[in-house]
């Protein structure tokens, strides 16, 4: 009753954001009124908010301010705690916390002993409690920015987050006043951040998402079929990330310092912390410019230090680490039983993806047609650090209006576990000279599925045969040269279309072979120059309905094949 302007009906409605909660950095995003994802800056202006909390005299510091405390107040600073959530002490790797508050066992969970009150005696704060505090700060930043109480979120998690970790995260979020609508996988969020752009079209594609974070790297192969995503394979490296690159910078400057002053700044905890903090900034600067500076006051023994490094030097030093990144990507493609030729795009996500050299190396691995979505290879690429948060925000905008029950029912395995086509289905073209195959439904398409395609009829018209077949892609080595890589045995996996526009110097290419005919249909009396529309509908039980008609024609030839089930 009454009008909204009177403020009479201020009902608590759901207001959801997307949160990317990482070990090193977290981001928050929201879909703005015009449908664009917008990553929210916190009160300090950071869009990548360090997942760090620090306490001085009971005062809580968060984000960049807290990160700076790693130098002077490392004992009361909690960092890199995301992966500890919902785990027991035995199964965690505490290495990243070496220079901050150390994780300790506390009953069945993990806690940090910190002085988070004005009193001198340290308190034990469980990792769940720390997460709650962190999320509460993120929520506050989002609320301040949007001017409206945020009370729900979609949060991204790594693909290998166990159920216990998920539950712990949901519980922590709830304690922070955030209703978790859904937890979604980081790589899929990244794919969605690209696919949710208004200019994007729904295509069938195979995407490699390389999420190169601060302390760990995760790579996944995601199949996108008609807008539905399926993860085909994942690979994780818990020791590889931005920190590995920072270490190279640190070592480089430490050696320089050592040479000058005969003191190793890495031996002093505070010196190392300073170098780490500045080294990270230098490494980031190198991603943008070819030269970067590092200056630390009182690095060791009160000696100030300032120096520069150029990108080439850095890239030379980091060769081994870069190889690890590319190796991880190649490994996951192999794990998915695919070939690099099958991959349609590579999305670089996570902070370390800013490093230009990594994307350039990936460019060399993948064929020309594969899109490499990283800032250094594509102007229109989205900031890799923001991908997960944007994807989460997009999902949040989709499910915001749904009831909890509705969401739960939708993400139930009953709904999400679906049969996927093991082989591509397409149409075979026989001409006088050769036989070609055109895939219509690619392998790994979730069922049920429906596709429609139009084909050109022969110029002279008349009766036409449509042969629907299962096809397999083969990798053919057309021009073997001495340098050529060894041919890989092709599996029954697919890619998009056969690459007709392939360049001549390419050695390997995809060819399609008819494997098994499924059905034949005839369209009679087709007009000259007309088009034939083929619609294939595959049921979950592998039954098919096929309809073929002349575009503009009234009658269609239909047929069904019963499923095997």
């Amino acid at each position: 009753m009454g009008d909204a302007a009177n403020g009479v009906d201020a009902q608590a409605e759901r207001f959801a954001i997307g949160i990317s909660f990482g070990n090193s950095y977290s981001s928050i995003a929201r879909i703005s009124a015009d449908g664009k994802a917008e990553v929210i800056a916190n009160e300090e202006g950071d869009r990548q908010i360090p997942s760090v909390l620090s306490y001085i005299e009971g005062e809580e510091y968060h984000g960049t301010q807290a990160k700076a405390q790693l130098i002077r107040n490392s004992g009361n600073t909690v960092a890199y705690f995301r992966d500890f959530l919902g785990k027991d002490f035995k199964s965690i790797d505490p290495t990243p916390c070496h220079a901050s508050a150390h994780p300790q066992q506390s009953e069945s969970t993990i806690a940090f002993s910190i002085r988070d009150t004005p009193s001198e005696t340290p308190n034990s704060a469980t990792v769940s409690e720390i997460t709650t505090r962190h999320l509460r700060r993120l929520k506050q930043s989002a609320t301040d920015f949007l001017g409206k109480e945020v009370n729900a979120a979609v949060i991204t998690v790594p693909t290998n987050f166990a159920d216990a970790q998920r539950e712990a995260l949901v519980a922590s979020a709830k304690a922070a006043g955030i209703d978790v609508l859904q937890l979604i996988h980081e790589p899929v969020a990244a794919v969605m951040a690209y696919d949710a752009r208004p200019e994007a079209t729904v295509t069938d594609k195979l995407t490699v998402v390389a999420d190169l974070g601060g302390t760990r790297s995760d790579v996944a192969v995601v199949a996108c079929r008609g807008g539905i995503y399926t993860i085909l394979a994942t690979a994780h490296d818990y020791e590889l990330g931005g920190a590995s690159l920072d270490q190279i910078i640190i070592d480089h400057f430490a050696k320089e310092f050592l040479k000058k002053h005969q003191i190793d700044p890495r031996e002093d905890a505070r010196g190392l912390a300073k170098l780490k903090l500045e080294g990270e900034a230098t490494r980031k600067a190198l991603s943008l410019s070819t030269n970067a500076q590092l200056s630390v006051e009182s690095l060791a023994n009160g000696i100030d230090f300032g120096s520069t490094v150029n990108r080439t030097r850095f890239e030379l030093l980091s060769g081994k680490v870069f190889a690890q990144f590319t190796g991880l990507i190649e490994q996951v493609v192999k794990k998915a039983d695919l070939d690099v030729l099958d991959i349609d795009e590579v999305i670089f996500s996570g902070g370390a993806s800013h490093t230009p050299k990594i994307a350039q190396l990936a460019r060399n691995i993948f064929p020309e047609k594969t899109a490499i979505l990283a800032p250094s290879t594509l102007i229109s690429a989205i900031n890799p650090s923001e991908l997960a948060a944007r994807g989460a925000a997009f999902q949040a905008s989709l499910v915001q209006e749904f009831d909890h029950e509705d969401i739960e029912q939708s993400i139930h395995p009953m709904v999400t576990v679906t049969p996927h086509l093991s082989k591509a289905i397409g149409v075979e073209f026989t001409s006088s000279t050769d036989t070609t195959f055109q895939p219509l439904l690619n392998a790994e398409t979730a069922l049920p599925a429906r596709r429609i395609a139009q084909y050109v009829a022969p110029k002279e018209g008349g009766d036409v045969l449509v042969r629907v077949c299962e096809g397999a892609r083969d990798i053919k080595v057309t021009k073997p040269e001495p340098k050529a890589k060894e041919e890989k045995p092709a599996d029954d996996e697919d890619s998009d279309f056969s690459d007709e526009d392939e360049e001549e110097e390419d050695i390997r290419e995809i060819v399609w072979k008819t494997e098994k005919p499924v059905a034949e249909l005839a369209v009679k009396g087709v007009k000259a120059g007309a088009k034939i529309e083929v619609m294939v509908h595959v049921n979950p039980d592998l039954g098919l309905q096929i309809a073929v008609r002349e575009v503009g024609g009234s009658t269609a030839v239909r047929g069904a094949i019963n499923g095997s089930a």
Partner: protein
Amino acid sequence: MAPVQVVNISLPALPSGWSAEKDFKPVGGLSAATQRNIEAVGPHFLAHARRKRHNRTFSEDERIQAKQNVAKTEDEENMDISEDEDPAMFTREAKDWKGQDHYAVLGLTKYRWRATPEQIKKAHRKKVLRHHPDKKAASGKSDENDNFFKCIQKATELMLDPVRRRQFDSVDEAAEMDPPSKKQISKGYFKAWAPVFHAEGRFSNKQPVPQLGNDDSTQEEVESFYNFWYNFDSWRSFEYLDEDIPDDGEGRDQKRHTEKKNANARRKRKQEDNVRLREMLDEVMAGDERIKKFRQQARAGKDAKRKAKEDEFKRAAEEKERARVEAEEAKKAAEESAKADREKNKKAKEAAKNAAKKNKRVLKGSVKDVNYFADGEPTASQVDSVLGDVELIMGKIDVDELAVLAEKLTIAGKDGAAVKSAWSAEGARLVGAGKVKEGELKAFA
């Protein structure tokens, strides 16, 4: 709708000799599928989930979604406002805006206080499109009268200001619902009163407002309804009726005087309004059958309780009485039986005494009948010794033994030897039992 791929490869011609029923020839099935987990994200997944959960096919789902979308646009169109103006409104002077019905000017009389700001904006736009002075000039009626347009502008300005809109709504007589007449009430009590409370509810600071309900409302609902209305928190105010304060700059006293008068008038009206509401509530409550019903129920409940208590008390008393009577009867019976026993005992004793007497007589008679065991006339000493022994034995034996002995003696009759042996045997038994000393007996030794 799935996007249509267009492929520029020409299909092969039908080979000669190819034939199939209905031009369709199934050849084979598909290879086995792999089960995989799809990611629960994105609009296409939501469509997939919707189809799967509701068991819809692609085309069904598309149709249902399309229908829903259509319904939404229809709603928007229905919101459109088209009310024709009362010709009397055109003759109004713009400066008398205070007296106009703003909702009527905007064509929102159907909605009044329910109209959303969105609707007001739309209505304003619609009216402006028709009544803008330039439109009039274009149609040739250039009478230079833009009064109605000014009215529209004024109405919109006021309606879009939440504070001023409330002021107007407070005194919007057209939205006022008069209490129903007796006749209306007689037709249906709740039907008559419900719209009144619905209308009054618009002034409530607390939303939603509990409704009057019907015959079936629970006591709790009814109580919360009356509690709400007796503690009604209203935003109704009467600034709109204030007398205009002349702001000609002179007459500051005059201005203060008017202000004071206005404040008083507002307070008075507010009080009157409160009184009106309270009186109305009293009337409603007095006529509310439900209250009576609940009271009766409560009373019936109380009566039932009291009755139960009384019954209980009565029952207890009866129980006690019965117990007492029973106890008395038992006592009486016991007494009687005791008396009977006593009498019986007495009789038995007497009978025993008689029997003993008789037996003793038999005993005494037995020795007399056998002539005191003497042949011929017994001597006095003989009689003495025999009788002495008889007395001694009789004194020593009890009633039963006496009876046995008497029987034996009766059997013996007048046979002197048998009688003597019976006596002697008895004497010997008594000696054996130690009741008589050896030698004490003389005749029956």
